[in-house]
């Protein structure tokens, strides 16, 4: 009985610490960015480069761009994947798009960066980009006869052209600025510029109470809940309630609650950027450079959002809210369960299996990634737990690459669109490449030979590109001869 309570306590503590510390400055803007991408970037502005006649050096980068900018959820991933494969530039770019989408989108990057560090986010982005293009090309080489048999349907689906409205670009860029200003740990954002003292006598005792409620062990990478954190959790709950009233029917128009929720969200970001220091008899609130940077970026968002068409603004808010509804509850449950698991898993187990960077450890990590299915983004707190428990960064990256790419759900979906044989080849390639990626990253972390590694990867992609061009030429000659 006692141990069950301890487990639940671990879960709740992890959740509270997590909500208080990480979520706000990274996820709140990320949800708004994801919403803006889904509603304000016309699909045709990127898909016009994915038509049947697009040359290699256009279609593969365009497929990667589509993966990172258009594919924020499965509503877009599946139809776009099937569309590129059947009616657009073919198997290779479709695979690149599919592979890059879960790792290259803004939510995954922002979240990985804030939880695991910018270096990890960067490595995940670059390796997924290079290997996504590589795997796409390999698939296209393996099955090039299929691609050649592609029936000559008209590709009207990809003929549309569109541009992103300037106001939408402004909104997107200033939202990204909010995200960066809120999360980057750099001078001058971290400097305290001014401070005020509030004579709140309960501040210190409240802080002590919080630490007693959520005990934590720093050596295991756990965090407690600060006074500021408890305030932020209260803000989050208030946003949740007001957003439910204000966003559910936003398509038909905004109401009082919509504005309350938006104001609360902006306030939350500002409060989260401040520095709260309780001391006996009072509370010191420090205004960091971050407060001013976030404030300015928020003003920019407001400035550009006012120039959007009312309809665009509404669909932006709806999409953002939809992402919150879709992802946030699962994330909360996931973090809770991770907190319980952390109490159960002994660090020695993790260290014995994946504490070093070798092929076995990377293989185990990928195997775990393929057979475990975590909902969108939950892979990141899981990875954080493994990192805290002593997993080597190499295998950890291997896990991060294979888990979102290869769940049973995604494999079935891929099989339905491109057939079992190709799906099997895809799964095999992703598994092999994830092991290689983890090994390379681990090697780099251990020994810092980034130049050689980057060069090797570039050569690899270049060789593939040449092989494809040669095959395409042969195909074209074959068609002409016939």
């Amino acid at each position, binding site marked *: 009985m006692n141990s069950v309570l301890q487990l639940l306590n671990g879960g709740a503590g992890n959740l509270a610490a997590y909500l208080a510390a990480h979520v706000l400055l990274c996820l709140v803007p990320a949800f708004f960015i994801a919403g803006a991408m889904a509603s304000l970037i016309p699909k045709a502005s990127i898909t016009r480069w994915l038509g049947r006649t697009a040359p290699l050096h256009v279609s593969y980068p365009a497929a990667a761009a589509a993966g990172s900018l258009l594919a924020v959820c*499965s*509503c877009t991933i599946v139809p776009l994947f099937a*569309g590129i494969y059947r009616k657009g530039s073919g198997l290779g770019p479709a695979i690149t798009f599919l592979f890059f989408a879960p790792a290259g989108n803004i939510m995954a990057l922002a979240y990985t960066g804030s939880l695991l560090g910018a270096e990890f986010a960067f490595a995940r982005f670059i390796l997924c980009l290079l290997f996504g293009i590589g795997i796409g090309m390999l698939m296209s080489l393996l099955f090039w006869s299929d691609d050649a048999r592609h029936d000559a349907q008209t590709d009207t689906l990809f003929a549309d052209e569109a541009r992103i409205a300037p106001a939408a670009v402004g909104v997107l860029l200033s939202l990204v600025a909010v995200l960066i200003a809120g999360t980057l740990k750099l001078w001058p954002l971290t400097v305290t510029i001014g401070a005020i003292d509030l004579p709140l006598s309960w501040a210190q005792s409240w802080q002590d109470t919080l630490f007693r409620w959520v005990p934590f062990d720093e050596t295991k990478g756990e965090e407690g809940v600060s006074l500021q954190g408890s305030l932020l959790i209260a803000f989050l709950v208030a946003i949740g309630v007001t957003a439910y009233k204000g966003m559910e029917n936003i398509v038909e128009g905004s109401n009082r609650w919509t504005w309350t929720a938006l104001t609360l969200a902006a306030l939350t970001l500002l409060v989260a950027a401040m520095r709260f220091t309780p001391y006996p008899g009072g509370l010191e609130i420090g205004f960091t450079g971050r407060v001013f940077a976030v404030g300015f970026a928020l003003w920019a968002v407001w400035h550009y959002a006012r120039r959007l068409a009312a309809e665009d603004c509404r669909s932006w808010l709806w999409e953002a809210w939809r992402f919150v509804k879709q992802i946030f509850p699962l994330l909360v449950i996931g973090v809770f369960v991770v907190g319980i698991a952390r109490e159960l898993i002994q660090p020695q187990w993790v260290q014995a299996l994946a504490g070093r960077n070798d092929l076995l450890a990377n293989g185990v990590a990928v195997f775990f990634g393929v057979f475990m299915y975590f909902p969108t983004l939950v892979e990141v707190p899981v990875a954080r737990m493994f990192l805290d428990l002593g997993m080597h960064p190499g295998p950890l990256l291997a896990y991060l690459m294979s888990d979102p790419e290869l769940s049973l759900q995604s494999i079935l979906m891929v099989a339905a669109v491109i057939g079992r044989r190709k799906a099997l080849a895809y799964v095999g390639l992703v598994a092999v490449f994830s092991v290689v990626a983890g090994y390379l990253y681990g090697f780099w972390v251990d020994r810092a030979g980034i130049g050689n590694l980057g060069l090797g990867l570039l050569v690899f992609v270049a060789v593939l590109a040449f092989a494809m061009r040669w095959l395409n030429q042969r195909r074209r000659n074959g068609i002409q001869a016939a």
Partner: protein
Amino acid sequence: MLTVKILGPGCANCRKLEAVARDAAASAGVEAEFVKVSDMKAIMAYDLMSTPGLVINDTLVSSGRIPTQAEIRQWMAE
């Protein structure tokens, strides 16, 4: 009698679209049969790049977003 098809694998947006479309039909007093299409192959028969898609009498009228009730009423009238 209209045939209204909702294209989508069953995500939040598809459910919302169905609700909006049903409300639109009810408020316009239009009799309509609602069909949910969740099979990917059937969905891909229409030219769309993002679900949910709304099909009225076999014409794709919108995709990738949730139209307002007024818009849907207008499409139903055509």
